[in-house]
């Protein structure tokens, strides 16, 4: 059963003149215990989508969706406050730049303790402080920080980036979430630290059956850790399917280009030749092309591409393209 089911979600940026459609009818579904990657270039709206799910976008942004279900509850029918209540009970999010996401003037311990839910505490109010402390220490142990005394007393700037991300994950775990949204959790991190964080997330997925939505711009890295992948480009849905399919037999020209653009160690290329890339760069929000937004850069683009394509479903492998590469395999 899908725990999260989003159909045609659009996010508009309200400006003084005309609203800008930053995310254009994107669909996303998550199963229980699934690790899904959400891949796209920077500026493709993947962080926006995640923030819209958690409901932390400010009132400059307007979110619409045809369907937005969380475990069978229709969130679009609820008021903003109720929606936030439902979501924040079960969904946790970790951000990129963990150090910027921790209050610089409060100790780690205090920030962890306030994340602990009141419902998990038993006993009278004078016992609660102690229980909160214990809960915070346990959370730190869960994410692999052994010396919790040192960590709880320090301020965010005294810890390394990777430790801060662990603390963020610990905070996310405090609510025992069903879905964890990780928005580029390892950006600006060394590769050893990156692997530690990914391994931690993978173990949480396996031990606690926690679903993870892993947002990243690095397709290759994501393939190691995910079961399914959704690809986005410039705020539009591109392709979704199992990691195997997406990586080996992409149906969309964009995904094909993404896969081809990552260099491999055993690649045979002549000296000083150009690596495979798409021409141009991702369009800025003020000058979005009509129809399929990949159009101007797409090697397969034809006249029909000025109309946005409908999503086609081939046995769970969804693709949004008029000229999909399905026939070429």
């Amino acid at each position, binding site marked *: 059963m899908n725990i999260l089911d989003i159909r045609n979600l659009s996010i508009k940026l309200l400006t003084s003149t005309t609203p800008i459609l930053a995310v254009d009818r994107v669909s996303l579904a998550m199963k229980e215990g699934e690790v899904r990657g959400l891949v796209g270039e920077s500026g493709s709206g993947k962080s926006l989508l995640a923030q819209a799910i958690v409901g932390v976008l400010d009132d400059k942004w307007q979110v619409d969706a045809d369907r937005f279900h969380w475990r069978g509850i229709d969130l679009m029918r609820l008021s903003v406050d109720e929606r*936030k209540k439902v979501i924040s*009970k079960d969904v946790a999010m970790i951000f990129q730049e963990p150090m*910027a*996401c921790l*209050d610089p003037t409060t100790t780690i311990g205090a920030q962890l303790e*306030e994340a602990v839910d009141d419902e998990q505490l038993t006993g009278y109010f004078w016992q609660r402080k102690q229980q909160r402390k214990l809960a915070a220490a346990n959370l730190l142990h869960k994410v692999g920080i052994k010396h919790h005394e040192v960590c709880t007393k320090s*301020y965010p*700037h005294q810890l*390394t980036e990777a430790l801060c991300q662990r603390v963020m994950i610990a905070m996310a775990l405090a*609510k025992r979430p069903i879905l964890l949204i990780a928005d580029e959790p390892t950006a600006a991190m060394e590769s050893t630290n990156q692997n530690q964080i990914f391994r931690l997330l993978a173990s949480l997925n396996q031990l606690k059956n926690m679903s993870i939505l892993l947002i990243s711009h690095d397709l290759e890295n994501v393939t190691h850790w995910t079961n399914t992948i959704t690809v986005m480009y410039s705020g539009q849905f591109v392709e979704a399917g199992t990691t195997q399919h997406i990586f080996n037999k992409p149906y969309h020209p964009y995904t094909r280009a993404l896969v081809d653009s990552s260099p491999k160690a055993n690649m045979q290329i002549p000296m000083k030749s150009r690596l495979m890339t798409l021409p141009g760069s991702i369009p800025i929000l003020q000058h979005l092309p009509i129809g399929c937004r990949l159009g101007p850069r797409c090697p397969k683009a034809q006249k029909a591409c000025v109309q946005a394509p409908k999503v086609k479903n081939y046995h769970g492998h969804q693709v949004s393209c008029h000229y999909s590469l399905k026939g070429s395999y």
Partner: protein
Amino acid sequence: MLIFTLRRLNLFLFTMLILSILSFSLSFLFPGEQIINISGQINATPEGIELVALEYGKHESLITQYWIYLNQLFEGNWGVSMTSQLPIYGEILNHLPATIELTMTALFIAMVTGIPIGFIAAINHRKKADDFILSFAMIGYSIPIFWLGLLTILIFSIQLGWLPSAGQISLLYEIKQVTGIQFIDILLSDSPYKWQAFQNASSHIILPSCVVALAPATIFIRLARTSMLNVLDTHYIKAAMAKGLTFQQIIYRHAIRNALVNVIRDVGLQFANLVTLAMVTEVIFSWPGIGRWLIESIYQRDYTAIQGGLLALSCFIFLVHILTDFIYATLNPLARETHRGPQ
């Protein structure tokens, strides 16, 4: 924290050194005989002047003269006033506490009203309340203080008769001077009319301190508003929202503290401005403070008094500045230590 304290002390020492050099050089720059400017002995006979010149080391090199001047300052010999022939040091000790009282009360009022109002404006960003507060701040900032002072006297003292218009306390009450700060003196005194005196002194301080506080309060409103807006825009507020905290929890636990950090740093800077306003206000409300005394000295070309008064006032301003720095450091863990590791 120790290094932080040492650094501040270091800064204090050097600033004091430069201030004393400035004050010393003023005695040369003012018109007239340098030795008379520095000592204030305006009626002395030529023999008397010669004695004073010997005392100040007039025949030695400039550096020795400066050294002797410093020694004199520390011994409490700041010369005598040219007009009243009273020792400057005693005059300053008499007048400075009243100014400290007035400025501190005004600073307190300005912070207690300005900062929360600024926060409220930021929380209601782009709503009616925000616009209203901003325009109020703009008006409050642009009202000239001498006009505002006269206006408040006209309304609250003369027409409504609620508050007294001049002085620090009614002449009926006789309070023995111990510390110089009147409220403390009143509380220390054993007069049977202690509480009446306290009430009377409080009603005297309300008008002038509110007049002084208005302009700084409007600045604090704007500082607090921008600082709160910046904080509300940061990632950690967004993360706290994703954590499921309510808006009140976010404001009270995270936003206020971080916004205050930025405001407090500027309070020290605004204090110098506030003291200038207090000097004008003291003249209007006949407040027996150092500002009024200094302005009178300027009118009477009392060069010795100007030198001493400037030194004392700037010393006071700088001490407050350092104090706010310490408050800033206790609020902000980042300021307390040198940065290590990646930022």
